[in-house]
């Protein structure tokens, strides 16, 4: 390649001028260097992103009786309602179910089991008492798997956050998977228009098909404050399996009872380990959380809810859904009339 001297000088001049101009231009554009700086390989970060928890300072706890109940007293087949107190949610759940006659009473080998906890939001970890305690859910899954269930599925429809995110942040995903169950995302496709034959206020609603077809439905709510229902307990927790929940809020108490009449869960286990005293159902303030260290279990959803209400200093009569449910004969809210076993582990 050969260029003349004149050509060389000409090219050199052009390149120098261009460089100088570029430098001037850069200076004019200003130097807010590295505004969007990170050259990280992935732009999206894993979620749930950890939101630091404030240390749970002085959450009031109910006083525990000093001596645990001896195991020989626990297995009592007539127990209508089991109330277990303690510090270990796993042991508490196992004791409660044993008191009702054991998991074999509810789950037969080959059964298709659906467990419905409360995973309503993906906002906070379980310490904030917005979602069911993962240890509680995990223990129930373990027991069902041990009883020979064909499959054990855990599901809910969060209104805040995606299901995948809510499942992970609540800790329930990890607990269920290690216990041998599966998490299911409730697909829009599987909801169908379902008649509610005993319904007083509503006679049909869109309900998740698989829940209607499962062999066993176990309702595992967490006891929380709710502005309209006053408390959200076992019966209200069933709202997770329907669509159009916004429209459901008229005459809410009766409608909750109507829905319960359709679904009739086989077993209700109320998570009262931590309870949300105010600003439910999503919570977010540790000052609203109270350590009640209680698990309530029963075949009778109305009775379980009625007992859970006492954790808040209320009775079944104070809760519209419980009143409606008792009236419809779905269970009894009269705690004096049934055999309650109060245990400590």
């Amino acid at each position: 390649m050969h260029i003349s001297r004149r050509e060389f000088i000409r090219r050199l001049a052009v390149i120098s001028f261009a460089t100088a101009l570029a430098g001037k231009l850069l200076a004019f554009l200003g130097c807010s260097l590295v505004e969007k700086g990170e050259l990280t390989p992935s732009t999206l970060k894993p979620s749930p992103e950890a939101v630091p928890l404030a240390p749970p300072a002085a959450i009031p706890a109910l006083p525990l009786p000093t001596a645990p109940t001896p195991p020989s007293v626990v297995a009592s087949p007539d127990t209508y309602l089991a109330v277990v107190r303690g510090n270990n949610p796993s042991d508490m759940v196992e004791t409660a179910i044993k008191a009702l006659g054991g998991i074999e009473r509810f789950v037969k080998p080959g059964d298709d089991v659906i467990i419905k906890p409360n995973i309503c939001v993906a906002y906070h970890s379980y310490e904030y008492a917005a979602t069911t305690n993962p240890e509680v859910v995990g223990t129930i899954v373990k027991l069902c798997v041990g009883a020979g269930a064909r499959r054990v599925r855990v599901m809910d429809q969060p209104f805040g956050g995606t299901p995948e995110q809510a499942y992970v942040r609540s800790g329930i995903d990890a607990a269920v998977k290690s216990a041998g169950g599966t998490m299911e995302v409730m697909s829009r496709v599987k909801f169908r228009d379902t008649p509610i034959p005993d319904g007083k206020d509503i006679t049909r609603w869109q309900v998740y098909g698989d829940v209607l077809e499962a062999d066993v439905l176990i309702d595992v709510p967490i006891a929380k404050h709710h502005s309209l229902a006053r408390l959200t307990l076992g019966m209200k927790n069933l709202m997770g399996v329907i669509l159009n929940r916004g429209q459901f809020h008229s005459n809410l108490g009766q409608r909750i009872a109507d829905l319960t009449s359709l679904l009739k869960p086989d077993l209700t286990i109320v998570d009262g380990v931590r309870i949300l005293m105010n600003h439910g159902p999503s919570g977010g303030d540790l000052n609203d959380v109270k350590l009640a260290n209680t698990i309530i279990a029963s075949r009778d959803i109305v009775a379980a809810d009625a007992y859970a209400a006492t954790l808040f200093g209320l009775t079944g009569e104070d809760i519209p859904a419980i009143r409606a449910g008792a009236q419809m004969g779905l269970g009894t809210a009269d705690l004096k009339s049934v055999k309650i076993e109060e245990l400590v582990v």
Partner: protein
Amino acid sequence: MKRLKKWYWRRRTVQILALVLFFYLLLGTSQGNTMFLPQDLFFRLDPLAGSAAMVASRSFIVPMLLGMAVLLLAVATGRSWCGWLCPLGTALDWTPSRRQRDSDVPKASQLRRVKEVFFLIILIAAAFGSLTLIILDPITLLVRSASSVVLPVLSLFVTSAETWLYQFSFIQPVVGWFDGLVRNTLITDNSFYLPNLTVAAIFIGVLALNAIRSRFWCRYLCPLGGLLGLLSKMTRLKHQVDHGACISCRRCARICPTGAIEAEKQFHANPTECITCLDCVDVCPKNAVSFRWKSGLPELQRYEPSRRQLLASLGTAVIVAPLLHFTAGVDRKESLLVRPPGSSEKLLTSRCIRCGLCLKVCPTGGLQPSQSTTVWENLWTPALVSRVGHCDYSCNACGQICPTGAIPDLTLAEKRRTVMGLASIDEKRCIPFAEGRDCIVCEEMCPVPGKAIVLEKKTFVNSEGKKTSVLLPRVRPHSCIGCGICEHYCPVRGESAIRVFPSAHSLNGGGGQRRRGQST
């Protein structure tokens, strides 16, 4: 004897790999999804979007400096990006186009300068602070159309098909399995937002132009093609015709997808138009066509576009940029649009390249391309349409994915404190106010710890003369962050009875920080 089309298959393979990578990254753009490559890789490679955003924002956006690699590619090999890597180019290659007949073997015409003029107008308008014309960038066009049109429509069809098939019990397990596979990757529950038909129109228009000429967009309109074409004048990879072997059969001119081969110039390929697809090499019956590397410094060619065209572009940009600021008498600050958390009209004007990644990543489908009739300069920048989807309290994905920082990358804790607007209740329609019935859905849904909506019990005598009470919602302005979940779930039919509007707080540079416990 048909010669083996070796370049055809090599190029097709590379095109397919690039397109597959493009779609893989696009479908992987969802909340919390970490991948081995950044999901905005194609935008980082896009020198037009990068330079426009940097000029308009007067800053260096470091990840987008990767665009220089594509510029160097053009200097070295011509418009090979267009022919081998560009996903829109690949899509246009596969879109049916009009076959070129011998009689209309195309020539380079003045119309081809349009794409270079578009490029200049984009840069000059960016220098004046307006980025609206970047909607003509091919990568933003593709991703934006996919996010706001193609994928939602696909979701609609697939979900409808699944719902119908789910009726038949024997096929249920298959449907369930398929749904689990595609939901939240390919399809979502988010519905198609009707105003996005304008986005669809542009996209379909670009594809439909292929009916006039193959790769019409690439020939005449693509501003990125214009930029790369200008650099291609210096290309080291030269198209050469062995004139001794050439029999003027015109096959190369007919097969050229961008009509770069000029028959009257001995079938020489114009480097500004040639996308180095190498189809001419394959098709020549006499092997007269080849591409050879030429060494040495780039030659300084006759300057194009001409000075007249440069001045015309400058003039157009000077007129266009202020026009886009046109606000129809409404003060620009009084925008009624709720913007993504931490963003603001100012940030969007200077940085948003309308890429559509935030639209794709938003888990509720609340972010939509804005089409405010009062402020055109922010056309198709993201706005939160709460009725369609609220801003989720556990999500900060839009800020993470935004390639230019138009939406700042906030941590989740910061984002939860960032104010996007203020909710306001229409008491004429809100059920407790208007009908005396309890509702409370807005308060129930409010994610703010301590609630930004309180309920006040009011006793009154109803129409039947009975003394009754109702819970009336009231917004606490100092707690509300404007996420819109209340507006989204309000059961009132039609327009929601509680709506989020931008507040003074949110308009001032995007996001103040609330102090917890501050009373109304």
